[in-house]
């Protein structure tokens, strides 16, 4: 279903009685609301209002209407392919169905419902098929009532999935659902969750209440159906669920009473409120995709509202794609722009600094550091005398040397200070006394050599010589 509907209208019909149930998907799950349950009065304002409201929602893309294909007007077949590959299996499914049909497959609308899930093993499918001719008549009958269905579902699947959800099997069982109508009844049989067959009786509650042996016939018919699925019925305990548009507690009691006379005593469940179950099931199935979805209408020409919704979805997707594309473009362009801006800012800063350093009008790109270094070196040479004239003074060193010498009774005979080095020659009272001068030389930036000393002579003083060079 291409429509992203949140409302489903399930419509079932039993003779002239029509049931419409509205299912709305909400945060707390699906809620059901009966909209119509009774004969159709096409001329009534109430009916017209209801149909008008329903189709306003349908054309708005909010709602889907679903009707059931009766079991007797369609063919239901469970199929098992010899393949484990779904792709291969889907190619052979039409052929497997074709040989089971009394008419050519091309004359029918067919829907294959995959029931394998994620199971390994051969791929299984449920085939629902309806002759095109019959489908045309079926659709026009609904359209005459003013109800053009968006989804054409299968009655048997709807009953089966509804009770799987409402009465989930607690243990392995053979399940039979008998849906009683006024003049017809349908039977669905299966094991656990697998639907194996759908059958129709030409008798409903009216016949059962009028004919004495009708119940006995019904039980016999049901037993024959079980025989047709002997393996399923023999291997598992039988559970019969009674429901339908004409269900009543008395109907259940009568049916169970006939069964109790038999040897086989199955478990019974009676859904006395099952009058609207089919419509509710159809409404819910139109909204969810995990209940063996089937729509023969989408196989043929879809409902115009669905086509419109499909177009709307395409447009929405396109707009979303365009917006995403624009956002991506903007992000990429923004990123590119930020890089470009930062790069330019750095280039500009480099140029400004280089221009200021070199005093050139324009500095060739990539040569900034080289030219700046050359310019700085040349300027350094020009300004070096000013620097020396202010900073370089040896007076401090001379003062320190003379003061220290006086303190330690060192006598300096010769002191030579040149731009490249220093020489101190003198005498000291002790052998190591001249060492006190070495830190002063180091502090002034000289690299002093080891002091040269001579043993004390006639003057009883140690003669020494200190030399230091500038690095």
């Amino acid at each position: 279903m291409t429509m992203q509907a949140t409302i489903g209208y399930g419509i079932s019909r039993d003779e002239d009685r029509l049931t419409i149930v509205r299912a709305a998907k909400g945060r707390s799950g699906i809620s059901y609301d009966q909209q119509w349950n009774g004969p159709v009065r096409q001329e009534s304002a109430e009916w017209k209002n209801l149909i008008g409201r329903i189709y306003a929602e349908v054309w708005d893309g909010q709602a889907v209407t679903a009707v059931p294909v009766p079991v007797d007007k369609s063919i239901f077949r469970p199929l098992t392919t010899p393949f484990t590959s779904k792709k291969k299996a889907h190619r052979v499914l039409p052929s497997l169905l074709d040989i089971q049909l009394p008419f050519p497959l091309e004359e029918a609308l067919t829907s294959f419902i995959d029931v394998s899930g994620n199971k390994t093993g051969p791929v299984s499918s449920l085939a629902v098929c309806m002759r095109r001719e019959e489908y045309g008549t079926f659709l026009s009958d609904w359209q005459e009532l003013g109800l053009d269905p968006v989804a054409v579902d299968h009655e048997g699947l709807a009953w089966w999935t509804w009770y799987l959800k409402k009465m989930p099997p607690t243990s392995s069982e053979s399940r039979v659902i008998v849906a009683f109508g006024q003049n017809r009844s349908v039977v669905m049989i299966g094991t656990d969750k697998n639907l194996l067959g759908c059958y129709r009786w030409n008798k409903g509650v009216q016949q059962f209440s009028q004919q004495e042996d009708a119940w006995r016939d019904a039980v016999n018919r049901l037993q024959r159906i079980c025989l047709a699925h002997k393996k399923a019925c023999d291997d598992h305990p039988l559970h019969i669920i009674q429901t339908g548009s004409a269900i009543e507690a008395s109907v259940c009691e009568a049916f169970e009473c006939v069964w109790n006379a038999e040897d086989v005593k199955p478990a019974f469940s009676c859904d006395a409120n099952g009058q609207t179950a089919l419509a509710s099931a159809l409404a819910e199935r139109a909204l969810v995709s995990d209940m063996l979805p089937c729509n023969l209408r989408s196989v043929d020409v879809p409902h115009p509202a669905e086509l419109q919704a499909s177009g709307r979805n395409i447009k929405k997707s396109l707009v979303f794609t365009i917006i995403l594309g624009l956002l991506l473009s903007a992000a990429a362009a923004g990123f590119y722009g930020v890089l470009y801006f930062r790069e330019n800012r750095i280039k500009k800063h480099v140029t400004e600094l280089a221009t200021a350093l070199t005093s050139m009008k324009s500095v060739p790109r990539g040569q900034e550091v080289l030219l700046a270094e050359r310019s700085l070196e040349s300027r350094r040479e020009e300004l070096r005398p000013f620097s020396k004239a202010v900073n370089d003074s040896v007076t401090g060193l001379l003062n320190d040397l003379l003061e220290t010498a006086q303190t330690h009774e060192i006598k300096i005979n010769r002191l030579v200070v040149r731009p490249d080095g220093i020489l101190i020659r003198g005498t000291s009272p002790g052998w190591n006394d001249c060492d006190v001068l070495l830190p002063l030389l180091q502090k002034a930036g000289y690299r002093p050599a080891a002091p040269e000393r001579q043993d004390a002579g006639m003057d009883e003083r140690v003669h020494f010589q200190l030399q230091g060079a500038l690095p």
Partner: protein
Amino acid sequence: MKRINPVTLWLSVALLIWFSALVLAVAALVQTPARIRFMERGRDTIMRLKAMQTQKQEMEENLKLHLKLKEKNAVSLQSTLQSLGLSQQATVRRKKTENLIDPWVRRTVEVIFTDVPFDSVGKFLYTIETQQPPWRIQEVIFDAADQNGTGGRVSLVLQTVDAKQ
């Protein structure tokens, strides 16, 4: 004329936008590493240039100091010697004058003291170094004449940077 289906038109627009977006995104991604490397190199260059700028500013400061001086000419050595009473023991000899940035020159002068107390030379040096513009010692030789090392011969090579006279 055949009418274009709106869906086809919108699809073409979407494809065009996506194609442009992809081209832009890929271009940005491809160029990013090179641009980041360029920016890192640029930042490194800026740091080096800034360091050079700081050095230059420090050098220029010394020139500015000279420019700010009230007196542009260094104190006369002769007059200083006279004021300290050392003119008799000292001989002043001009060695060389170098032209610097106009109007500045660097003058180198030799002063030789014979038989002078070293303390007096210290006073002389202190006086000329604390004047503006200052004199600076380039070379100094003390030769003590006595065993006490309190006086003797002193040879000084002095330099100053001052304005042309």
